[in-house]
């Protein structure tokens, strides 16, 4: 998931739709994010490229809406409801996710296993019978 500055970013993404859960008067999604262009990318344990300043999922609460929707720890969030998440600060990302008037967030997330799966299917490794 490294990018070359100036070139468009390409990634294999998965669409995840999470319904916000109302709990104690707050709308929560049930996961934690880390990263951002104002953060230190070297301390991100989930990124392959340690210069990647994207938003990553660091934790999902068990039984929460995010886990139910299929979000996994280590996913990189590329878009939230159409808003780009690859070049945002940590606080901007948080704000896009926690808008009070939205009940559902549609995320585009990418992970290494997706890339691998696509590569494998494109790679003609077994000879066709």
């Amino acid at each position, binding site marked *: 998931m490294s990018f070359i500055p100036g070139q468009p970013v390409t990634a294999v993404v998965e669409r995840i739709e999470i319904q916000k859960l109302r709990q104690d008067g707050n709308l929560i999604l049930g996961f*934690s*994010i880390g990263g951002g262009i104002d953060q230190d990318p070297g301390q991100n344990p989930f990124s392959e490229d340690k210069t990647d300043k994207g938003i990553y999922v660091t934790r999902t609460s068990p039984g929460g809406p995010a886990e139910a929707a299929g979000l996994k720890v280590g996913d990189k969030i590329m878009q939230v409801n159409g808003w780009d998440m690859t070049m945002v600060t940590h606080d901007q990302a948080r704000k896009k996710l926690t808008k009070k008037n939205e009940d559902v967030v549609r995320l585009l997330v990418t992970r290494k296993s997706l890339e691998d799966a696509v590569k494998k299917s494109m790679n003609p490794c077994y000879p066709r019978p």
Partner: protein
Amino acid sequence: MRERLTAAAAADPLTTRRKLGGILHISETKVNVVSEAALWGSCQSWIPEACLYSNPFLLLSTAANLPTLTRDSHSSAQSPGLSSVGMDTESTHSGYSYHSSRSGRSNRHGDRSRERHKASSSKDSSRSERSVVINPPDTPSQDSPVHNGEPLPGEPTPAADHGDEAQDDNWGETTTAVTGTSELSVSQEEVVGLGKEIQDRTHNFRRYLPLAVGICVGLLVLATPLVFLLLPTVMWSDRLQACGAACEGLFLSISFKLLILLVAIWALFLRPGRACLPRVCVYRAFLITLTLLLTMSYWLFYGVRILDAQDEDYHGIVQFAVSLVDSQLFVHYLAVVLLELRHLHPCYSVCVIRSTDGETCHYNIGQLSIQRAALSILEYYYRDFPLHNPALLSASKHRAAKHLAGLKVYNVDAPGSTAAAQPSNGNQSRPMVTPAGKRKDNAHNELYYEEADYERRVRKRRARLVVAVEEAFTHVRRMKKEDENSTPSDIMDVREAALAIFPSMARALQKYLRTTRRQHCHSMESIQKHLAFCLVNNMSPKAFLEAYLAPGPTLQYGPERWMADQWTLVSEASVTSGIKEGTEFLLRCLDFSLAVTVKGIPYIRLTEEYIDPKSHKFLLLLQSETSV
């Protein structure tokens, strides 16, 4: 007071012992109970006044020179500037006789309001409980019946009425001798007194010898060029060729150079020395020899080439004289470098430890001979080390004595001894375990509780003292403009003001000093003087008290405590050799010594690293995790 007189009069054996010239051991407790009048009246005649110099003149002797006389406290009756006070008194007691010498002038007999100093440097703790009184020697109101300082209540013998003391001069004279030594109980024979006289003469001789030699050599050096110039004009003036402006220029240069040489010689060699060292300084001897050699060789050449040949070229003769003055100036330059500059550059670090209480200090000194290093260390000692107080060491000695008393000593080699002999241990004694063992178990307990108790007592007294002093200071303030019209009886000068507020704090101060065993360092006169000084300079009570709460450097106290003539340098290496890494020597004073070890300052290798100022860039390292 009568009981004191009888007690003192009963000490008749003292008189006989005094006639033999012996210093009595301080454990003769009665002798401290002495009446001031007789004491001071009799001492006036023979206790020399201490001459006050700005710095103590240090008299340093090597151990080889003075085997038994190092503890001579009366050696310097003639040498000025030394702080010895009289024949048999050690420095710790000289506060007593210092008073007496000064108060002998004032009319002290029959003074009622007096307090006496406690015997200083007492080894016995029992002595600290006895009552003592401080002397006010020069009080203006000494003839008035008003008591200057109230007698301390709670003392067993209040000092209330001194009116009818007998003026027995004989009796006073015999008892002054016992004003006390510190831990030393050395008896002095009269032979020592004889030896002292000879030593005094040699001291004076040695002190002024460098000055005499310097003057002689200086005169020789200054006169030689002038003689070189004058002799031709005197002896064969008719045949001399006159030389014009060049010679006049040379005359000018000679005169100015001689003037500078005169001042320089005076500055370097002829000023009064600040100390008397045991051996001659090697560099000075070398420089004097060099100068004399130079001058003699010039005389030789002059005699052969000019006097014998009767040279007519006066210009040449003048140039000859100028070259002599130049060489002498260069020798003086060498002298400046050798004597003054060499020891300014620090290359050794010395560690000085006082033997009795372990006070340690470190100093950096340059390349010096051992005796000069000892001299500068002593000057640092007078500045940095707190006053030596033998009274504080008595506790550990008691413990050691008790420990030894609990040991039973067996002589293993005694015939018929049934104790098991260890063949390797020769004559060593072995302690018996059982009774001493139990006592040893309690020694540290005792020490712990004793120290805790002492701390508490000191803090209590200190608190009372601070409060008393603060209250005393509130009673007096500086006069302002509008007070000028107030009652004139209230307006006092600073001395009267100090005397007026002193009594309210005297008792608390006295008790505090006695608890910390420093009461012998401060006389009432000095306390009042200090109080007046603080009032004049608008100091706070805390500033006034600082002088008494902690022991200051030795120079702060009177000259009787300096003992500047009692130092002995004990060294294995020759004292004129230079100090090196690992040199050790000892500076011994009367009852303590300073152990000095020398280490070199390490060779420091410093390397350089260049940092471009634009390379200072920073990143923000935040890593926060937000749950959404």
